[in-house]
């Protein structure tokens, strides 16, 4: 039963971290977009609005849970549940780090290492369209239906370039297991250029990476592909009729999908938990350095406060950062924490990219969206796959 116990613990840890991340991801998004638009963003609840997510959760839970009378009840209730389940499911196969030793045994920082990990991810992502489609249909509202239809068409269409883009790095990795895909990207060219899929010989997967990212934007219904929920066209689309926690579920599903997609991108293309440069060149000290620098910045602002509260809070933050930096320097913990740091850093960077694009790009028109998927993305992805296959066949 040790296996089950270990799995349960890992699942609990992942779920806790993931849900917290989701909550704060939304805070980060609001902050970043606010700064893009030169405003402050949430700043009332807690220092810098840090408690805003909590407030949101309380608000959503305590709101009245409306169920319109004309909906198809079963499907109406099942849809958000389904959406959030599917969104959280694919996280289970993503490896966060290398082998670690706990409780006298060894395990992987990954919930389940499937032989067909990447197929599992594709399967889940292909099924997750039902959440939105059914929500749109069950709401019995023409705007919701339009949103649902749009979303199913969009997700089916972008599923193809996405799968094609995934297939190309698989040719380099020669495996379907996500952990082995990451391990296949270990090592460095010339001692310092990482052998990540994006730049791996014989065929750098840079096109694949870009196509995957674009398709990922569409799959997660993010700007510039957020047609299913286009507020000004469809009155928020498929979730018009949802309120309270059911609305929150869709929200969670969207952010969870974002995290999943970024993690997969990191795993497939950016070397997963592997460091940016070799340990021999000091990559082990990067996290400590980063946190020390962050702590130093916090301390500086604490000593030169912009607001009154900062005098108190920022030094505390700085101390926490310094502590984290010290933790990262403990050799016993480094084995577990360094991979986590790198994984989180890469995924975080991608998440920032998502938010950044939301803050800057306008929405596509529907026909443009479809034409883009079928007439540009798909051919390019297929071409990339063919060329990769050829190169792999020729050079390995």
């Amino acid at each position, binding site marked *: 039963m040790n296996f089950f116990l270990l799995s349960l613990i890992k699942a609990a840890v992942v779920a806790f971290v993931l849900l917290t991340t989701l909550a704060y991801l939304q805070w980060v998004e609001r902050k970043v977009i606010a700064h893009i638009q030169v405003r402050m963003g949430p700043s009332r609840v807690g220092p810098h609005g840090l408690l805003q997510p909590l407030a949101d959760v309380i608000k959503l839970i305590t709101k009245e849970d409306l169920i319109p009378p004309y909906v198809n009840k079963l499907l109406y209730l099942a849809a958000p549940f389904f959406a959030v389940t599917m969104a959280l499911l694919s996280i289970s196969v993503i490896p966060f780090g290398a082998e670690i030793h706990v409780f006298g045994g060894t395990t992987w920082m990954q919930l389940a290492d*499937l032989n*067909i990990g990447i197929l599992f991810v594709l*399967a889940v992502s292909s099924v997750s*369209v*039902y959440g939105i489609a059914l929500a*749109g249909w069950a709401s019995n509202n023409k705007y919701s239906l339009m949103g649902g*239809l749009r979303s199913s*068409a969009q997700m089916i269409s972008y599923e193809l370039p996405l799968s094609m883009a995934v297939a190309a790095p698989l040719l380099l990795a020669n495996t*379907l297991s996500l952990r082995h895909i990451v391990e296949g990207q270990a090592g460095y060219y010339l001692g310092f250029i990482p052998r990540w899929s994006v730049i791996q010989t014989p065929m750098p997967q840079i096109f694949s990476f870009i196509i995957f990212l674009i398709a990922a934007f569409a799959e997660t219904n993010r700007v510039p592909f957020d047609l299913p929920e286009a507020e000004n066209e469809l009155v928020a689309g498929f979730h018009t009729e949802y309120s309270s926690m059911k609305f929150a579920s869709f929200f969670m599903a969207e952010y969870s999908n974002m995290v999943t997609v970024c993690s997969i991108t990191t795993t497939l293309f950016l070397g997963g938990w592997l460091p940016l440069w070799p340990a021999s060149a000091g990559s082990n000290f990067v996290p400590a350095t980063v946190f020390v620098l962050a702590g130093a910045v916090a301390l500086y602002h604490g000593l030169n406060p912009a607001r009154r509260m900062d005098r108190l809070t920022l030094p505390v933050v700085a101390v926490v950062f310094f502590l984290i930096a010290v933790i990262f320097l403990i050799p016993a913990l480094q084995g577990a924490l360094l991979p986590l740091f790198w994984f989180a850093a890469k995924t975080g960077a991608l998440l920032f990219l998502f938010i950044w694009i939301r803050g800057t790009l306008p929405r596509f028109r529907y026909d443009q969206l479809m034409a883009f998927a079928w007439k540009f993305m798909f051919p390019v992805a297929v071409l990339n796959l063919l060329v990769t296959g050829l190169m792999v066949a020729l050079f390995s």
Partner: protein
Amino acid sequence: MDVILFLIFAAIAVICGFNVVVQSHPISSAISLIGVMGSLAVLYLLLGAEFLAAAQVIVYAGAIMVLFVFVIMLLNAGAEIRKGRSLLAQVLGIPMLFTFLGLMAFFTRNMFPGAPDVHFGGFRHGTALDVGRALFTQYLLPFEVVSVLILIAIVGAVVLAQKEME
């Protein structure tokens, strides 16, 4: 463990399958069918067909059934109108179904008297590697033929479904 898992998912499959038949609204049937397919995917895993399990979900649940749901939503198909029953189908059909099922069950029970039981992990050659190897060597010609078939199907579907041009 094997028996429990089998029974759970077989039960889900049968209940959902039954639901496909009895639900009056096509979308409920479609959802039930997705349930059948999902539980069948788990059964495939138990039988060691991990690649097929993934393919089942991706192709059936993720592509074919999405198309079904999409069409149902597009046509806004309502519940079935019960009228003009086909007498033949009813009179001949229902007894025939039971005879059919009984015969099949009887034969399958008698066909494998001493066959070993199914254990999870008893067959380890259903990986993507094995399936791919068989597909691209021994079954290369059918594979290519099927790819042409798919192409024809795509063209056919586009021609059928396109809007009238002028």
